[in-house]
């Protein structure tokens, strides 16, 4: 009965034409080519190895397709790690303007010795790894991100950053991406690391699996019920053997997915434990989460999107200089671990890391801290990124009536650029509006 492959069965077998055509969100010819390939070669079924192989788009080798990114890594092999700097990161202390105006606005919190990137900006001194990557051309800094009618509430702003679309019916921008790309076909295509699944990852027709550490889905199964592994094998017996997962009702589908995700995570994470232990970081810190995110991407689990959130507080109303320095150090160490883990696995080229935050902070500081603000700058990192500065830094001499920075780039332009340029998706559909895209990736 406890046939080991039992609960993986359907999820391993579903990569048929249906799956490929479901990726018709691929811009323009992408979907056409995928459908044609399916018609020509019959059904592609993957088993073991890299499940994403079934996504390969044969036309890609023939040269750049209109609307598709032309990078060296196949779209289907790419992963995105999003790092949410929750609480509102003070980006003026992260990507530091060198102007005198900045020092006037920040009498108590100005960064004294930024790492200079050019004659206009520098990085927080704790961001050594990111500075090094910037010099190597692997970091895009997108400046002036924000929104019209910004709201200074954490809740409202977070919700907007998560949703990325007006009236989004409680789906997130990445959830809608997963709906359109993998649907229900791969249970671990989207993994959220933090307290529960990030709302940014919630879709209507895909899974998001939330984990808090390298124990994966763990198991709260009491000792007196059974050994968890045996129990899950028996439990997955509730799923009818002869019905494809896509045709199951939501409850049976959830049981199949949960048993499968639990086991895949347990199997996939076991070899990573050593790597993660060697780093010796607190699993619940931002750097621990980032290391785990990278390890997951580097593993056979190969999620398309990993979302790191929830375990840090960037809401630095007071004692900012010391607190923010520690947060920056954590972020930098996390990026450093991630870079090393990805490089060791040969996965650096196919992975992009980006930061988000619900808002930046007020231009002028306030007795050693900063209040909620509006526009902010963010990082997009990885060897596939075309390094440099994008967008436009907000003018520190032209603040809005509340003393906030005026945004120069809609935050959804960043999303659109990632969706189109890295994930090969159609941003207009997923964001439900058209935003300017930036060419953030190497061509």
């Amino acid at each position, binding site marked *: 009965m406890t046939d080991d492959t039992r609960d993986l069965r359907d999820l391993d077998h579903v990569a048929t034409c249906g799956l490929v055509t479901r990726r018709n969100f691929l811009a323009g010819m992408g979907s056409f080519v995928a459908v044609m390939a399916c018609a020509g070669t019959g059904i592609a079924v993957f088993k073991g190895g890299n499940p994403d192989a079934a996504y390969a788009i044969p036309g890609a080798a023939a040269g750049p397709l209109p609307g598709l990114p032309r990078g060296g890594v196949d779209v289907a092999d790419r992963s995105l790690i999003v790092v949410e700097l929750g609480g509102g990161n003070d980006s003026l202390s992260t990507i530091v303007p060198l102007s005198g105006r900045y020092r006037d606005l920040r009498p108590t919190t100005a960064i004294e010795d930024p790492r200079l990137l050019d004659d206009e900006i520098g990085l927080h001194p704790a961001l050594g790894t990111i500075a090094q990557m910037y010099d190597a051309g692997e970091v895009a800094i997108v400046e002036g991100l924000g929104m019209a009618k910004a709201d200074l509430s954490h809740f409202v702003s977070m919700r907007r950053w998560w949703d990325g679309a007006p009236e989004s019916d409680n789906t997130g921008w990445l959830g809608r991406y997963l709906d359109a790309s993998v649907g229900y076909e791969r249970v671990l295509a989207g993994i959220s690391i933090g307290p*529960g699944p990030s709302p940014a990852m919630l879709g209507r027709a895909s899974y998001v*699996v939330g984990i808090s550490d390298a124990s994966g889905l763990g198991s709260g199964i*009491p000792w*007196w019920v059974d050994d968890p592994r045996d129990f899950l094998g028996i439990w997955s017996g509730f799923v009818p053997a002869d019905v494809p997962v896509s045709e199951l*009702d939501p409850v049976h589908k959830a049981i199949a997915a949960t048993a499968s995700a639990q086991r895949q995570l347990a199997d996939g994470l076991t070899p990573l434990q050593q790597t993660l232990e060697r780093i010796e970081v607190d699993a619940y810190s931002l750097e621990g989460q980032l290391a785990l995110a990278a390890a997951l991407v580097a593993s056979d689990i190969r999620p398309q999107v990993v979302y790191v959130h929830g375990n840090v507080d960037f809401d630095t109303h007071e004692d900012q200089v010391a607190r923010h320095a520690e947060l920056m150090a954590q972020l930098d160490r996390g990026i450093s671990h991630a870079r090393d883990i990805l490089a060791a696995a040969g996965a650096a080229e196919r992975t992009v890391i980006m930061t988000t935050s619900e808002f930046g902070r007020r231009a002028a500081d306030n007795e050693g801290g900063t209040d909620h603000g509006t526009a902010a700058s963010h990082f997009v990192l990885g060897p596939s990124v075309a390094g440099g500065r994008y967008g436009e830094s907000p003018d520190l001499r032209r603040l809005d009536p509340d003393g906030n920075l005026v945004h120069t780039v809609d935050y959804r332009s960043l999303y659109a650029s990632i969706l189109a340029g890295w994930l090969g998706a159609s941003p207009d559909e997923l964001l439900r509006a058209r935003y300017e895209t930036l060419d953030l990736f190497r061509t």
Partner: protein
Amino acid sequence: MSGCWSAGSRTIPTTYSQRERVAHVVRRLGIGAHPALAAELPDVAAATSAMLDFSPPQLPPDVKAPRDWDSIDYDLVWQRLVPWWMERIASGRQPLAERLVWFWQDLLAVSGEKVDNPYILWQYHDTVRRHALGSFADLLHAVSTSAAMLQYLDGQQNAIDAPNENFAREVMELHTIGLGEYTQADVAELARATSGWVVNYPHPEKKGRFEYRDAPPWSGVFLPDRHDAGYKSFLGTTDRYDLPGAIERLLEHPSTGRAVAAKLYHELVGLEADAATAERLGTRFARDYGVRGLVEDITDDPAFLSDAAVRSRIRSPLEKAATVMQAFPLRDDFDATSLFWMFDKLNYLPLHPPNPAGFPKGVDLLDPARIMGSFELLSMVDDPEERGDAPADPLAALGLFDVSEQTRELVGRFTRPGLALGLAFGSPEFQLV
């Protein structure tokens, strides 16, 4: 979601015995399965009439308002209020009241994630209880001017010179008329109308005093100077609306009765109300917004006892927890802190919903981490084998009677009581109410 299953349907029965129907009535009008209660109810008529107890909900033990910021008891919610409340839910006394308290609190949600003052959360819960079986109109007025709502949806920041639209938008979208019934201009006008309310906090300088001496501490206070007293064109009428006036206008709007009735219909029946049903229920409800009348109208609807209604909703973590608490004695060392961690792990902390729309519902509850994590609810109780009172039929112990052959076979295959109970808890049928 409806009761319409696709290919998996043959694994779940679609007609039900009297026992399962009684269990259905109990599951829907209470929270959990209340096995002791259900066992004494011979048929659905007896079950419905026993469950329709409209006596006023028990109020939480009285708590003194903190004198200042320093005397706030941060354990109040988790060490006192929630354990008391969960005990009420588990006990089977006034199960309908507990169902309605949960429903209204989810409809008019505030969250301790933002409202981080436990006394204000306690007040809010107390307010919901006072009106849970009374009048929705009174409830909406009371909650809209509560400190909790003023904090949660930023009403306290909404002033004539700095309008904040947060409450205005949510009160229409979620609490009353619903999406599609208003424009952005209505939101802006309603924001003006509801401006001027703040929370009465401790006085920053005068120790032991509050900012507004005439108002109760930590309550909502209306400040005419902060209020925009001009004319507002709101939902097609123009008047000098203030917050109570605007709430009245929303209560008069035909969509409010319909929208709220349809939501309670979904909660109790588990199916979407069709347009005619929503219209009929909503029109009657809007006459006086009496909760009792609406509950009776919904339970009188033939759909309530229909086959399609049985097990047509996803069982929430709260409903799972309540079922376990009702079926077995709790572990000796299970305390308020264990309760907190258990719900925290499931991202389902009472009084801490993730957003103004309340807790996740329906298929959103089926995310793998939550399903996996919910097994931990079983650790509220001891090993049934060791306890020596292992249920002969673990499915029945959890209030499940008509299950698929496959479920009965799989659960029955294992003689170890713990394993059988774990499987009954993990069965497809238990994921539904």
